[in-house]
């Protein structure tokens, strides 16, 4: 039997929509789940996905992708890449797997919501494939690290991080719960696929794939490149939805969702990806600074995508452009200083050569973040290790759940953005985080940050031991310097030279 070409039947098949007779439209598509935009079913039939794929095509291509990634893994299983890798690279893997793997299953659930509840037939088709993508990503990113569990306890966090109260995971869950687990189908398409996946996953997966290849970890490089090919397809689910909304006079609602999600994604990446690119990756393997990467992959990408779409740049764009040269330095210093609360071992990345690179990429680094590191380094060289650890909690933002920080040293500029709401004092790390809260206070007001939980007596005993227990960090898992402070030797030698001179 002759088979029609895809484009001869795809559009017709896609738009063959059910007309409900036995139930109302609202029963079939409950507004809370489908999106309360007040648009008729017919408006959503104009949704036109730019990337069209049929189920048989999908299965064929995905099978090939899986075969490629799994065969590279099988071929390299005895290569001892993990055992011989730079400790900084192992930390990259651990941070990535813990923060991402289980979230992929959550993303599958969000895609499934679009698959069932979107009124746009094309979106239902795209997200059927997207849902299967996310299941594949979850499976792969749990299977691939499994071979290392017996070698390193921290790898177990690929499997357990999502179920813990570790602070970075609270931040990740807060963001993903907000943009994909508790939103209607259309909002998920805007906030998860357009705002988060279009730019940010590109950066995490393409950037890390390049770093992995440089580090000689071809298994990981192949794995995440394979994932990224799916992301770049299903990230396109949101664009046509935005188009439908804008064409039907719903620009303001669309813009707000973009603005909220882009900011949350930025904050999460400032702690997850920023330190990896500018501090953990060995100097000789760095291609671009985090800021350069952000400018190329996020700033340029969004400016183009938003303008093409007829949307505006988020109102906070100037704040964002300033932040991409600053925030991640604080996130690195913070996560490193509170390193026992991590499930990976952060690399300090502050040898004189690395500092010269940081100064070149971020003029003024030595007079700001470098000033804090100077004190830290002196303590390490002096063997005064107690002073290199914290004795209290950093105050975290009630929106992004990450430390409230700013520029230290000679350029000291650290601000709190407080807000009193229903008798409770909330703290935010930026004007934008506070603005997000103010858009829908009841949505966020009940959440307790890790500091709120501490103050409420939920963390016992009220010390570092109690906090680590609360976060699920067992002995053998808690983070410490990736290189066991070997990097400080050069400073010790410099001091000896100065003394001798």
């Amino acid at each position, binding site marked *: 039997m002759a088979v029609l070409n895809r484009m001869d039947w795809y559009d017709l098949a896609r738009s063959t929509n059910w007309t409900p007779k036995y139930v109302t439209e609202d029963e079939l598509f409950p507004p809370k789940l489908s999106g309360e935009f007040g648009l008729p079913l017919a408006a959503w039939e104009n949704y036109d996905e730019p990337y069209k794929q049929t189920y048989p095509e999908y299965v064929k291509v995905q099978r090939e992708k899986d075969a490629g990634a799994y065969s590279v893994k099988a071929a390299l299983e005895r290569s001892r890449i993990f055992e011989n890798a730079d400790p900084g690279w192992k930390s990259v893997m651990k941070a990535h797997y813990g923060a991402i793997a289980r979230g992929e299953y959550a993303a599958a659930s969000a895609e499934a919501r679009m698959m069932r509840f979107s009124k746009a037939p094309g979106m239902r088709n795209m997200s059927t494939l997207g849902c299967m993508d996310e299941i594949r990503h979850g499976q792969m990113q749990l299977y691939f690290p499994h071979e290392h569990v017996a070698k390193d306890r921290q790898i177990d966090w690929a499997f357990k991080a999502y179920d813990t109260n570790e602070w970075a995971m609270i931040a990740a869950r807060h963001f993903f719960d907000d943009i994909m687990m508790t939103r209607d189908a259309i909002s998920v398409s805007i906030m998860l696929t357009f705002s988060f996946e279009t730019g940010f996953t590109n950066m995490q997966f393409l950037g890390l794939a390049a770093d992995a290849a440089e580090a000689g970890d071809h298994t990981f490089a192949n794995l995440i490149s394979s994932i990224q090919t799916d992301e770049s397809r299903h990230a396109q689910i949101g664009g046509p939805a935005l188009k439908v909304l804008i064409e039907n006079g719903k620009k303001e609602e669309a813009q707000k969702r973009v603005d909220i999600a882009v900011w949350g994604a930025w904050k999460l990446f400032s702690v997850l990806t920023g330190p990896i690119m500018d501090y953990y990756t060995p100097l000789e393997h760095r291609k671009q600074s985090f800021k350069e990467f952000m400018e190329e992959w996020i700033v340029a990408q969004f400016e183009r995508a938003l303008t093409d779409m007829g949307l505006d740049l988020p109102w906070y764009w100037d704040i964002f452009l300033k932040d991409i040269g600053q925030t991640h330095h604080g996130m690195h*210093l913070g996560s490193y*200083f509170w390193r026992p609360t991590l499930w990976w071992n952060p690399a300090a990345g502050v040898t004189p050569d690395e500092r010269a690179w940081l100064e070149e990429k971020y003029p003024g680094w030595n007079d700001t*973040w470098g000033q804090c590191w100077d004190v830290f380094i002196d303590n390490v060289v002096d063997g005064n290790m107690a*002073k290199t650890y914290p*004795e209290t*909690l*950093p105050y975290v933002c009630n929106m992004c759940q990450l430390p409230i920080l700013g520029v230290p040293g000679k350029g000291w500029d650290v601000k*709190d953005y407080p807000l009193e709401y229903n008798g409770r004092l909330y703290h935010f790390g930026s004007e934008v985080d506070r603005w997000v809260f103010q858009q829908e206070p009841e949505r966020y007001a009940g959440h307790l940050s890790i*500091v709120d939980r501490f*103050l409420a007596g939920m963390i016992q005993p009220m010390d570092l031991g109690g906090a680590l227990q609360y976060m699920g960090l067992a002995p053998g898992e808690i983070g410490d310097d990736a290189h066991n402070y070997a990097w400080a030797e050069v400073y010790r030698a410099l001091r000896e030279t100065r003394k001798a001179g």
Partner: protein
Amino acid sequence: MALFPLTSNFEGDFVLQLVPVDTEHTMDEVAAAAAVHSVGRRVRDRPGHILRVRRHGSTELLPRNLKVAEAGFKPTETVDIIWQAA
């Protein structure tokens, strides 16, 4: 006498930190409690300087012997801890 949480924004440091103080503490004692978590960890000591407390973002320093209970702080309110030449 009661435990009272404040948030410290210490001059020269990069992050806000939770600092438990007592309602009977003076502002000098608040500054000293905050310094424990910044000075010698990420901020160098400044000989010849004392530390003063002000409401976050204010330019007015609070009296050194003012007690926490008298200052009218809200729990977890952020205070700036500022170096002042002695």
